[in-house]
């Protein structure tokens, strides 16, 4: 069971995210796997309040979440930085013009100790793409700000029918470190 009340400082980042999703009636979780997101993905799978499954591509999840929201079911998409980089067409042709709110959690690769040059480069495209679509995004570095940012931004996304991206910094999650 995950506590759905205000979080204590002893909760892990992924437990805080799950509690914020529940508090805002988000019940569908789609993801393309990522090592750093694994505890969040495991927590969602273990929680019967959520329908949780992997999609083969991030775009596919955008379609599923769009259909689900239009049908009255709120969902979220979990992915890593390189997965977000596959999304501009789906965002610009579906989410934005139809005013369909997406909740996107992005595990940030490519910075603060990245060991793969490709990841470092693709990371540079993420915020310019979000800004070019006038899409709300928050880079979350601090555990004590996580609940406030996620909870308030989910409410804003559904109230304004505009998507939001939560960029989960290695400062929050620990990130992925090089192992020889």
């Amino acid at each position: 069971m995950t506590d759905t009340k205000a979080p204590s400082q002893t909760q892990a980042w992924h437990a805080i995210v799950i509690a914020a999703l529940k508090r805002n009636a988000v019940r569908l979780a789609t993801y393309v796997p990522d090592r750093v997101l694994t505890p969040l993905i495991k927590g969602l799978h273990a929680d019967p309040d959520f329908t949780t499954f992997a999609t083969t591509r991030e775009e596919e999840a955008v379609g599923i979440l769009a259909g689900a929201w239009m049908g009255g079911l709120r969902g979220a998409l979990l992915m890593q930085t390189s997965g977000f980089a596959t999304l501009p067409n789906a965002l610009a042709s579906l989410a934005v013009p139809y005013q369909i709110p997406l909740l996107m959690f992005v595990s940030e690769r490519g910075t603060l100790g990245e060991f793969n040059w490709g990841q470092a480069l693709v990371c540079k495209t993420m915020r310019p793409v979000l800004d070019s679509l006038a899409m709300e995004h928050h880079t979350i570095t601090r555990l004590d700000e996580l609940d406030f940012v996620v909870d308030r931004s989910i409410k804003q996304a559904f109230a304004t029918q505009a998507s939001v991206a939560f960029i989960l910094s290695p400062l929050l999650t620990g990130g992925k470190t090089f192992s020889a």
Partner: protein
Amino acid sequence: MTRSGHATPSHDNAKVMNRFDLTRRLVAKLKKDEAVIGGIGNTNFDLWAAGQRPQNFYMLGSMGLAVPIALGVALAQPMRRVIALEGDGSLLMQLGCLTTVGQLAPKNLSIVVMDNGIYQITGGQATATASVADVVALARGSGIAKAGWAADEAEFERLSDAALADDGPTLIAARIDDKPATATTDRDPIRIRERFMQGLGVR
């Protein structure tokens, strides 16, 4: 899908039919506010031309996402039948979605693929279904066991009746000609989306 006394319908022995005619036949069977998601381009245009039901959703881009959108609606509203109308080129762009449908196995989801073996709207370039790829084999290989070719219009109607009555997921593939669509959709995404949500009872 085999009927005694008949050869198993396949891509090669299926009759080449017409998309607008088949779309009209399908839409005429929708009596329970079934949701229909039209893919990009001609499948969408002929869905529009077949009658602008509030339960129809028309994409204006996002090629390949008709099946994922339909899956999302099916998950949100398990008591409603949901149909994705796709073309062969669009399906090939997002083939992985068939495996997601196969894994989740939503009972209320059907996929109809209008296969003319070309990217018709961009100038008629050949798709892989014109030579090596078989839509029904791809569906079965993705875990969608109830997948079959419609041998002719009568069988398309029979398969459509089964898709609307029996547990899914199902996939119907139909060979179609290269006739252009008979109309084009409205281009106002917010109006399309609001009307669809009203049709689904969400608004």
